[in-house]
């Protein structure tokens, strides 16, 4: 029997699993598919809008919210230490910032999106008064630099002066004869120093003195320092602009995080963040990707096992504790049928925020449907309508928890991180209480 089964390998699930392993728990991390990190923008956001722009996202989580919001259970200190935890775990080549400032970084459309912990390859995009030049790739259909640059010019620098931005185009061929290469294909090609050099050769002649150079966020996938090399070769500051999915920055985070979890499972001593002394337990952990959970067993108020559809036959995994981190409607873990009935699709847990009018006919209006989700206690245990935990050993984390408008608020990453850590920590501390009680007896 394992200590904990974590279901879902998005930011919330990976966070909970890692934290549990760091605390000496054996974990089975079960995921139907690759988690949602690579659908996002590849930064860690805590809070951008409420709906006014938030300048300090970590302090912001206190002022934001009523008791229906997931942040209600967390303090600014919790958020600050979560930010530090994820930044240290991912490394300073992938995440920067302390969470007390919202960077405002250009998107592919030229809007300035607030984010708490960006990738270092993005931070020079923040308007600073310097001239910006955006580079488009003719063979990449997801970035239109003229549109983004002109939209930037409609906005201002922090000092109130209009942003100066222009666009150039280069024809970088990353696969022979192909004019419709994906962001991922560009990124893989740009892992190669030769292609990096080719890009610089194409771009360099167009640059003017002092310009900051923005590229679509495809500057290397495995090579997280590709942007630095390109910057050095161009002798200009360089930044990446997030485009629609597939998200290369998201893939970088996802690959780093999953590799870390897997290697921690194999050889805990090899990873700085998973301490040696827990090696025995961590090595009993497993990552089951492609494991679709299709059922579960209970005993009284406890979940005892989950059943996973695996090749040939279903597998039953027993554990003491369970963390459900399967995401929201976007992941299929919340669903609405043709009669308008919403449900949590695995444990059929009670949902909060359900009303007769959950869908707003105005696209730009508030969409109550996307606030629907679980309501949890301090330990992240889903509650029923009377406010009691549905199962004493089942916790939830991430987008499954209702009450937030994650995309509009830019709060989804912070919620995943905070709830994932809390779910793990409350398991650990509950376990400590158990063993204390045991020793007293």
């Amino acid at each position: 029997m394992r200590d904990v089964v974590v279901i879902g390998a998005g930011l919330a699930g990976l966070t909970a699993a890692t934290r549990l392993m760091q605390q000496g728990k054996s974990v089975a991390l079960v995921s139907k598919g690759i988690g949602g990190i690579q659908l996002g923008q590849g930064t860690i956001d805590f809070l951008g809008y409420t709906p006014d722009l938030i300048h300090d996202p970590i302090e912001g989580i206190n002022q934001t919210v009523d008791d229906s919001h997931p942040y209600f259970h967390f303090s600014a200190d919790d958020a600050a230490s979560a930010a530090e935890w994820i930044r240290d775990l991912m490394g300073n080549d992938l995440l920067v910032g302390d969470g007390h400032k919202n960077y405002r970084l250009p998107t592919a459309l030229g809007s300035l999106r607030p984010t708490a912990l960006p990738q270092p390859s993005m931070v020079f995009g923040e308007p600073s008064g310097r001239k910006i030049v955006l580079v488009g790739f003719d063979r990449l259909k997801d970035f239109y630099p003229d549109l983004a640059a002109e939209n930037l010019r409609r906005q201002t620098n922090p000092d109130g002066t209009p942003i100066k931005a222009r666009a150039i185009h280069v024809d970088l061929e990353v696969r022979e004869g192909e004019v419709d290469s994906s962001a991922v294909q560009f990124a893989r090609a740009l892992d190669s120093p030769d292609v990096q050099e080719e890009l610089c050769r194409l771009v360099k002649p167009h640059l003017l003195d002092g310009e900051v150079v923005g590229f679509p966020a495809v500057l290397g996938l495995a090579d997280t320092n590709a942007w630095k090399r390109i910057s050095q070769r161009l002798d200009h500051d360089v930044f990446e602009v997030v485009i629609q999915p597939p998200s290369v920055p998201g893939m970088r985070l996802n690959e780093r995080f999953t590799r870390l979890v897997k290697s921690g499972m194999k050889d805990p001593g090899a990873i700085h963040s998973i301490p040696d002394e827990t090696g025995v337990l961590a090595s009993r952990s497993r990552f089951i990707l492609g494991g679709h959970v299709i059922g579960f067993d209970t005993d009284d108020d406890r979940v005892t096992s989950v059943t996973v559809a695996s090749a040939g036959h279903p597998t039953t995994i027993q554990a003491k504790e369970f963390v459900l981190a399967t995401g929201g409607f976007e992941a299929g873990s919340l669903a609405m049928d043709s009669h308008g009935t919403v449900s949590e699709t695995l444990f059929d847990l009670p949902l909060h925020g359900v009303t007769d009018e959950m869908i707003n006919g105005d696209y730009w209006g508030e969409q109550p449907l996307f606030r629907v989700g679980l309501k949890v206690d301090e330990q992240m245990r889903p509650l029923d309508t009377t406010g009691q935990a549905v199962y004493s050993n089942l916790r939830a984390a991430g987008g499954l928890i209702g009450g937030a408008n994650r995309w509009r608020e830019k709060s989804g990453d912070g919620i995943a991180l905070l709830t994932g850590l809390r779910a793990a920590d409350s398991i650990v501390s509950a376990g400590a209480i158990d063993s204390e009680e045991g020793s007293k007896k």
Partner: protein
Amino acid sequence: MKTIDADVVVIGGGSTGAGVVRDAAMRGYKTVLIERADLAQGTSGRFHGLLHSGGRYVVSDPESATECAEENVILKRIQADAIEATGGLFVTTSADSEDFADGYEEACVNARVPVEEISLREAFKREPLLDPGLKRAFAVEDGTVDGWKLVWGAARSAELYGATILTYHSVTKIDHKDGQVSAVYCLDRRTGETVRVGCSFVLSCAGPWGGEIAAMAGCHDVEVVPGAGIMIAMNHRLTQSVLNRCIYPADGDILVPAHPVCIIGTTDHKAGNADILPIPQDQVQQMLDAGEEMIPGFRKSRAIHAWAGARPLVKDSRVSAEDTRHMARGMQIIDHKERDGVSGFLTIAGGKLTTYRLMAERIVDAMCEQMGDKRECRTADEAVPGSTDHRLYTLDRRLNQVETETEAPSGQQIICECELVTRKKLLEVMDGLTDFNLDDVRRQVRLGMGPCQGGFCSSRAAGIAHELENVDAERASELLRNFLKNRWIGLWPILYGQQVRQTALDSWIFLGTLDLEHLPEPATEVI
């Protein structure tokens, strides 16, 4: 003020207006068509896409049935590119009595509508998902017609004959002097400029909006009652032929495979205002139930869009019931000379998309008669631009085009993956329009009409639009925002199942990753 001189002004750019402008232009009249929005943005673009065989009407209205059967053949000849010859079935499901089926074949023969009763085995071979309790099946010549292609085909043909097509122009005034129509004034909604079109004849083909137009010429109390109906598109072709319930016409009795989707329709309820057509939840449920009766499991498939259209039904107490001279069944012509003393002004309403060409022929005949002109109608013989090769549309056409036009794999950018819209095609359409919004483009190439409903293609389309000379970033950004807003109108009423998941992802992209909401607002409204 801009001025244009013409013989005939046609008001309304639906199928009737487009048919009329083509017919009048082909007969040698200098003709101008005025449409307040895009062509076929009203009723003609908001139907289920059925090209009638006539089979629907053989019992209730045999004369219409015969007309449909004849026009079905003509349209396949002159507008092949807009039509897929899917064939159709009239089916008696386990929920239906066989009473209607018993007399059905004879009624078809009497109305000269080709029909053949087929064995259940044959029916299941054609349509494996049909209700296993199927009792009877009759094969007819139903097809699928793309209303936008049909209307644009007629309009392009009219342009070749010298007609002027003014879209996004609202009629503001119809002048008449001494009881004779003299000019139509309209407002270019995109530039704000007023245009005066001098003319001696006005044909109002404004459908449900016909009453408002008539009032502008001082002809009051033309009451058009919009009969509204909803349609729902499902993400797959659950059927390859049109399915009709073999019963007296009822709600939700037709399932039409159109392009890569299939469409169930329709309901019928009185709408107070043709500009505001709700998609009521009870009607959505009614359509899903009806689909379930023909195709068990229908509810479980993915609904991707819904819309409502308004049939124009004229109620006019002042037209004498005997005056059926110019009336085809289901179509009415009001001669305002007799009715209101305004000569050179006819209002046309009613009718069916399948018989749009025939209606146009009759109206223009009526106009010629009033003018004392004798000019022959030629619209039945000449194919419209895009259809001159007489090749009927097939579902695999786009894929074939992409594959044959492209030397290397991925040698063209596919901007809308759902509907296989290439960058080249998109630019071609944008170039062909004087000014456009992304919905105008969508109606021509089906941009954003697949399962992602614009999630991945619409910001690309905005970026490509912005590359054109007259579209600045403010406009391009607003085109994108409006497109998403408009897609949502047809999405939210049928939001369930897999489409909820897609919508969540799309919201993640636009509201989350791209933060489209926080781009600066436009200074002026973008139309």
